């Protein structure tokens, strides 16, 4: 399944947030969206997942989601959004219960997804007992268990320290290489974008417009921390964004 955005524009009251956004999210690829803070990245992602409606334009779903897909458009949130009163397994089970998956089937699916995210030993732990990185892995497990057609990730690693971030990026890459998934990955961190993105969409400052789309040919599994060619790409992205970020930073909040 693919996502196609056509002429998406949005305003909150008098404040224009997004303008004329055209983006294609091809199946089996990770599309990163980068842009200065406040440019409308989160808003755009909410629209892709049907949590908000754009004033202008449309978000289209091309093709059918696979048969075994329980929740085609699935989010991973920056602040994890785990239920603190449920265990790791309980948080994963939450999203199966409503889709009628119960009993042995559910248990097998939960066990499998916890194994894939290396959380098997923590099935009965409560979120408060977990580190930030572990919490986000639980959230990734919860997203994977519903077999999403498109994963929508809003700065999933921004609440983590940089070492944990590296580890989780490796996790995401190995998950993707084993079974390629489609994802939109919003971030303000250019290093994450060049590590994880097959395609990087650079947005301007508010109102967000597409400044440039960069395609990276190097396969994900061949990319590593500190690769020279990735550094070059990252530098190019930074040059695109620098002026925008500076201007965005100098704006009055709420102005």
């Amino acid at each position, binding site marked *: 399944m693919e996502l196609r955005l056509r002429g998406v524009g949005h305003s909150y009251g008098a404040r224009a947030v997004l303008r004329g956004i055209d983006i294609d999210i091809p199946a089996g690829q990770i599309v990163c969206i980068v842009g200065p803070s406040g440019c409308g990245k989160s808003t755009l992602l909410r629209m892709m*997942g049907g*949590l908000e409606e754009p004033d202008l334009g449309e978000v289209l779903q091309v093709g059918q989601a696979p048969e075994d897909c*329980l*929740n085609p*458009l*699935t*989010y991973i*949130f920056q*602040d994890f*959004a785990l*239920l*603190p*009163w*449920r265990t790791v397994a309980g948080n994963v089970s*939450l*999203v199966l*219960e*409503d*889709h009628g998956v119960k009993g042995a089937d559910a248990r097998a699916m939960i066990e499998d997804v916890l194994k894939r995210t290396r959380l098997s030993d923590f099935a009965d732990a*409560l*979120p*408060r007992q977990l580190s930030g990185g572990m919490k986000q892995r639980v959230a990734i497990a*919860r997203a994977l268990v*519903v077999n999403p057609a498109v994963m929508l990730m809003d700065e999933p690693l921004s609440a983590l320290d940089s070492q944990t971030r590296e580890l989780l990026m490796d996790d995401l890459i190995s998950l993707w290489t084993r079974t390629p998934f489609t994802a939109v990955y919003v971030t303000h961190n250019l290093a994450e974008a060049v590590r994880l993105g097959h395609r990087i969409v650079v947005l301007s400052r508010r109102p967000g417009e597409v400044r440039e789309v960069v395609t990276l040919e190097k396969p994900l599994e061949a990319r590593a921390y500190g690769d020279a060619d990735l550094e070059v790409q990252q530098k190019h992205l930074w040059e695109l964004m620098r002026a925008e970020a500076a201007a965005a930073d100098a704006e009055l909040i709420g102005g």
Partner: protein
Amino acid sequence: MDNPVKKVVFRGGGFAPVTRRWVGFIVFLVLLLAVEWGTRTGVISPLTLPKPSDVLQTFAELYSSGLLFQHLLPSLSRLAVGAALGASLGIGVGLLMGLFSFIRAGLVPLVAAIFPIPKIALLPLFVIWFGIDEGSKYALIAFGTFTPTVVATYAAVDNVDRTLIRMGQSFGLSWLSIVRKIVLPGAMPGILAGLRISLAIAIILLVAAEMLGAEYGIGAYILEAGSLYDLERLFAGVVILSVLGVLVSAVIGAIEKRVLNWRS
């Protein structure tokens, strides 16, 4: 040149809650002993306060005569029925107000209007509406627990983390599932904190409820002792109410420990 070497002075103490188990008990004991000493030596006149040892003796007599349970049981059942009615209605209405903006808009002014009414003033009205027997007593206690429970519940629903609700929606959970699995557990800490207050109010209202048409009951016992200026019996009754308060609070504490073990 020799630079003077000095240890950095620690200034980060205090302002952190620490559990000190026996302090409360000791304060209580010291107060009692002081009153006992005061009444024995005459520093405190017998008209001001009864001797704690006399109160204890009155209590023992109450127990051995079997009157204690004759008073306690009707009071406990009034408390249980009234508080259960008021609290469950309160939680129900509070949830509806938290979930539906229409209901909230309609009821917030009403709740604000009835909250400050001293419910005791309405006792005669309840007697007319629900009869002089148990009905009016249940109604008074229920009404008194209802309003604080409503306010605590809808505030607790408001405080549920919106990102968790968004998460539920994004995974396609049904409305009922979101309420049952996200809103209710998320509001539970606030609801239980509210119950603590509501149940204390229920105990206060117990005495008021037994002002009219009650032969037996802790409240009736206290009111009778009060009208006769029988301070020993008055205090024996008051002690029973205090113990009841401590017990209720302990029960809620135990429930919190079980239900909210995910916090800490």
